[in-house]
């Protein structure tokens, strides 16, 4: 027994109750939300909810901190935008192309990054993503600083016009909810159990005979693919894909969302994305320096608030119960 009872980066996850009710509530909320908020804002929020949830699949449930998820987010956004603008395919194919690109990218970056652990993993993902950033800066199809813009969203399956705001809204809402269900299924599957075992004690998982590297890579690629889906939706929503989506600041933002919401909790990313997007919206008009406030928030969260909002609430409930 070592004296190093280090506070690990993730909190132990509790078995969540049957989430049918939770998801039903989520659908209900999504149905009425546009009545109160600007739908574009809600859709943006949903893209980031998905982004954070996909990221949390890796950090919260596998214990791997990626500092390079912007590559998958922005990479998929570029490919989706390119597919819509140049190839002129229907949106579902454009999104699939974006996700496929993110998966391929995830395989490449993941294969390199899983060679090291912990902080090295974080630094390697950051460096690989920065390499992709420079690639995007120079590759002709991304239009450099201008980005890809000025394309139609097209008709979903050739029928539903996504340039209609509410059509787009229901599409994005449906995709997000289905993805969250998928993430929940992954986390609670035997596969998810092994991921958690890796997170809690990697050497023991290896000694149990699991090929840990493969599981890590699989988790990394799944997370990359779902992140790509979020990026593709964002490109579809804003009809816009730029360098900002692949820049390291974006990777930082998704970490902050997950951290604020609660690493390793299912609801954490949803809450965290809501708080951060809301905060950014507020700051954009307040005249306060956004980056500075984000940085400060980061520091405060790490110093005082490592469980995040949802984690703190769960902890409080548990203590009251126990």
């Amino acid at each position, binding site marked *: *027994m*070592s*004296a190093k*009872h280090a506070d690990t980066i993730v909190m132990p996850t509790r078995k969540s109750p049957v989430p049918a009710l939770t998801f039903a509530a989520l659908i209900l909320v999504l149905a009425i939300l546009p009545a109160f908020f600007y739908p574009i804002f809600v859709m943006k929020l949903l893209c980031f909810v998905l982004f954070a949830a996909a990221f949390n699949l890796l950090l919260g449930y596998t214990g791997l901190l990626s500092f390079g998820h912007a590559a998958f987010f922005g990479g998929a956004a570029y490919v989706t935008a390119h597919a819509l603008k140049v190839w002129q395919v229907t949106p579902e194919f454009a999104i699939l192309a974006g996700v496929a690109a993110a998966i391929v990218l995830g395989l490449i970056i993941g294969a390199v990054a899983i060679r090291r652990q912990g902080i090295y993993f974080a630094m390697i993902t950051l460096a690989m993503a920065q390499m992709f950033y420079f690639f995007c800066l120079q590759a002709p199809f991304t239009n450099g600083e201008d980005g890809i813009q000025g394309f139609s969203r097209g008709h979903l399956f050739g029928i539903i016009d996504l340039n209609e705001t509410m059509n787009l809204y229901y599409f994005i809402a449906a995709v997000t909810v289905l993805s969250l269900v998928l993430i929940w299924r992954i986390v609670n599957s035997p596969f998810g159990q092994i991921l958690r075992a890796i997170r809690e004690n990697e050497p023991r998982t290896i000694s149990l005979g699991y090929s840990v590297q493969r599981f890590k890579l699989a988790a990394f690629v799944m997370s990359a693919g779902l992140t790509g889906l979020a990026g593709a939706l964002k490109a579809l929503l804003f009809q816009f894909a730029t360098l900002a989506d692949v820049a390291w600041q974006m990777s930082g933002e998704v970490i902050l969302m997950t951290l604020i919401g609660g690493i390793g909790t299912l609801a954490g990313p949803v809450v965290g994305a809501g708080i951060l997007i809301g905060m950014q919206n507020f700051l954009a008009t307040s005249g306060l320096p956004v980056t500075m406030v984000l940085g400060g928030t980061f520091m405060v969260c790490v110093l005082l608030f490592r469980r995040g909002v949802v984690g703190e609430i769960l902890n409080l409930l548990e203590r009251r119960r126990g």
Partner: protein
Amino acid sequence: MTATDTLTAPATVARGGGAAPQLKVRKLEAWYGESHALHGVDLDVYPGETVTLLGRNGVGKTTTLRAIMGIIRKRKGEVEFEQKSIMRVPLHRIAHAGLGFVPEERGIFASLTVEENLTLPPVVAKGGMSIEKIYEIFPNLFERRGSPGTKLSGGEQQMLAIARILRTGVRLILLDEPTEGLAPVIVERIGEVLKVLKTHGVSVLLVEQNFRFASRIADHFYVMDHGQVIDSFTVSELPARTEALNTALGV
């Protein structure tokens, strides 16, 4: 009748010749994370004494040394050194109070040369050995002074671990299993070094599995079990106790 029953008889011989104990430990408890490792240890070391902690593996001997030293911060109870409580003294001031520590794993630094290892612990009081004197006692260390500390043999590393504390002028040394895994010849040498310490008036609190080794150099013994001291006797009582001890220690 169990072995412990015979062992709980109080020590009958007065120690320290009326002087106050140099190290006084009372009701010391310690935790590793959530696990409660010490359940109230009481022991004394009088000036100039060599005191040995006996006990089977995992009963808390090493933990006791680490808790006295303050390396384990999660602890409760009282530790007095030379009549002053050291429970609230920060770890890096403990040595300056006059307390030295030689860990079980010896703690020789690979990135330091032998000489750097030797001169690493700051001198905390007068009366420590000079480098020259140490090299005189340990000529091997002088010969190897420029090579990395961990390139030494196990025995030489143990010598180095003890020697570097001799330099500092501490008045009491906590010594954790100095003979573990060493050849008999080396164990012999370490015994001689401990006798040199005694002639210098340095007290030693020794954790030792090698009962025969301990019985030749110690003045007083404590037996530990389950994180507590369960028996205490002086060297003169040793012959009468040997059999019961063998049972208790599972020798």
